[in-house]
């Protein structure tokens, strides 16, 4: 327990590196020749349109699917991920978008589900203490760990799911649309949480459709389009660049609006030129 605050890897170390990953479902290539890197203490956002292959990529990393070709290097070693257990034992934890918690069990039981301490005589005191330690490290605002998860808000549930993922001390954590179902305040809470997970020195991969959330926490934005790498962006890249990378078109609502704004500005004679404000 005393190591729980220790950095699980020195910041900057290459945790995960994918080279030439392809995945075919029959005749359909879901992923083609994907290269993807995650360093320790870094949040990498994975964005792309529906069907771009984000979920397939995350499922390959979680051990749900196996790649058709390509290599996965985890902390410098080539690895294979034949099933979810293998990914967990290596130190890759996944927080799924939904269906991840049992509403009828309390917070402690959910965090330890499948990893209970002393299986034949559950050690409730030790589990409760460890649960509080984890939640406090995340500065989580959970009123009581002995309440059923059903009584928690969406943000609190996401917190419990993330605490659950951290229990096994992973090196890499995958978040599949962590803010999709949340309100404004709860989204902010989860984004703070992601910041704290990064501060613990973990590599974070986050799938999201929400560009604002992505800009708020990501260190790099990796765009997938039709199963291929379509550029890596800094978080301060313009919305227009991102959207055209995602959609593959330079003529769309966002670019047209930017054009219009620029035209208006030029027309009004203001000297402000160049990039529009994000």
């Amino acid at each position, binding site marked *: *327990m*005393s190591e729980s*605050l220790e950095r699980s890897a020195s910041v900057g170390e290459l945790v995960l590196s994918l080279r030439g990953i392809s995945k075919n479902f029959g005749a359909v290539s879901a992923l083609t020749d994907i290269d993807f890197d995650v360093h320790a203490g870094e949040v990498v956002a994975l964005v792309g349109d529906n069907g771009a292959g984000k979920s397939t990529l995350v499922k390959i990393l979680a051990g749900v699917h196996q790649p058709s070709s390509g290599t996965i290097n985890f902390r410098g070693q080539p690895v294979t991920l034949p099933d*979810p*257990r293998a990914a*967990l034992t290596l130190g890759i934890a996944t927080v*799924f978008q939904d*269906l*991840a*918690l*049992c*509403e*009828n*069990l309390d917070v402690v*039981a959910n965090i330890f*589900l*499948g*990893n*209970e301490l002393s*299986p*034949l*005589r*559950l050690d*409730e*005191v*030790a589990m*409760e*203490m460890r649960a*509080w*330690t984890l939640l*406090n*490290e995340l500065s989580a*605002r*959970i*009123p*009581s*760990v*002995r309440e*059923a*998860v*059903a*009584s*928690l808000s969406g943000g609190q549930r996401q917190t419990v799911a993330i605490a659950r993922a951290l229990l096994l001390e992973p090196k890499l954590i995958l978040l599949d649309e962590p803010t999709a179902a949340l309100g404004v305040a709860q989204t902010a809470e989860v984004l703070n949480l992601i910041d704290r997970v990064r501060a613990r020195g973990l590599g974070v991969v986050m799938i999201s459709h929400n560009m604002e959330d992505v800009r708020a926490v990501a260190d790099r934005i990796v765009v997938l389009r039709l199963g291929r790498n379509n550029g890596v962006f800094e978080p301060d890249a313009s919305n227009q660049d991102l959207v055209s990378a995602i959609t593959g078109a330079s003529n769309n609502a966002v670019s047209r609006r930017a054009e219009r704004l620029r035209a208006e500005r030029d027309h009004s004679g203001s000297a402000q030129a160049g990039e529009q404000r994000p």
Partner: protein
Amino acid sequence: MTNLKQSASAPLALDRADARVRHEAGIGGAVRAFLDRVRSGDLGSLPVIVGLVVIWTVFTSLNPVFVSSSNLVNLLFDCSTVGVIALGIVCVLMVGEIDLSVGSISGFASAMVGTLWVNQGWPVALAILAALAFGALIGSLYALLFNRLGMPSFVSTLAGLLAVLGMQLYILGSTGSINLPYGSALVDFGQLMVMPKWVSHTLAAIPGLAMLVSGLRTFARRRAANLSTPSVAGLILRVAAITIGLELIVAYLNQSRGIPWMFGLFVGLVVAMNYALTRTKWGRSMTAVGGNREAARRAGIKVRAIYLSAFALCSFFAALGGVLAAARLASASQQAGTGDVNLNAIAAAVIGGTSLFGGRGSAYSALLGIIVIQSIASGLTLLDLSSSLRYMITGAVLAIAVIVDSLARRSRASHGRA
């Protein structure tokens, strides 16, 4: 250890740091927390206790013999057989499934014991073991159909109800019933054997002692871990109430024959199952699978194995209940396990507070529920009412129990409790 540093600066317990949560303290607080729980639909064993009080009051006013010590001892004998079956039903209900064939399995198990032991001359222990193994096998078959073919347990066990009943009729053949020899250990166990007084009084003191010891241990460990501690006074009060209550009941029952060993076996099984369901990883997994199957799977729980254990245990307990019923009646007949056995077992589990929707329940619901069901049966028999009325009333009680379960579930959902 940052944890220690935090606790040194903050005098609050680790789980009391959040100011937004009201924590009830003291006896008044315990009562308020209880009322809050009930209002939000977390009824626990409240309906069954209310039901028992009503039923006992009504029957006693109609016929005072009902609460006589000897009638209650008989009641305990009768409870044990179907009660063991209900314990199995609790297992399948916990994972949100059902077994409708427990009556047939119990009947077939009693027929098996009769045929193998009396007709074929097997040793009685071996015949019983064979019947229990057969029960577990049937349950495993249901689990196989459920896990591999996705067959709803409702349908597979309905098919099993008929098929196993057919097997029971087949092995009993033309004679239709086999009498088990009076004076044999099995029949004595089912009809006569009661605990000596000192044994029953000692056993009645054990739950309180166990509560006290484990309560104090938990208290010390929680304090050492800087978690909030429950009040010791409350614990001692509960222990005293339970011990005195149990000793009084035992003393009253000892005025006539005393506590049946068969009932002792039943309660022992209930306590063992309660431990398994609440204090082991297996029990946690059962609850998780009943609450959210997909989440349990993603947490790395072997969901299929959990279903297998639930179905196999249920049929095993059904077979055991059948053997006990044969011992109780000193016969294995075509009627064994038919009629209302099935529904009584399911009703007992539901009335006792195990949800039909999975993920909620306790082994004690089998014990409490079967006492309700048998009280009704015994009271109506004492009033000399025909079985037609008995069926109608038991049916109504089951309907009420399920209505209470459904309403409580809806209320829990709207109050944010699972």
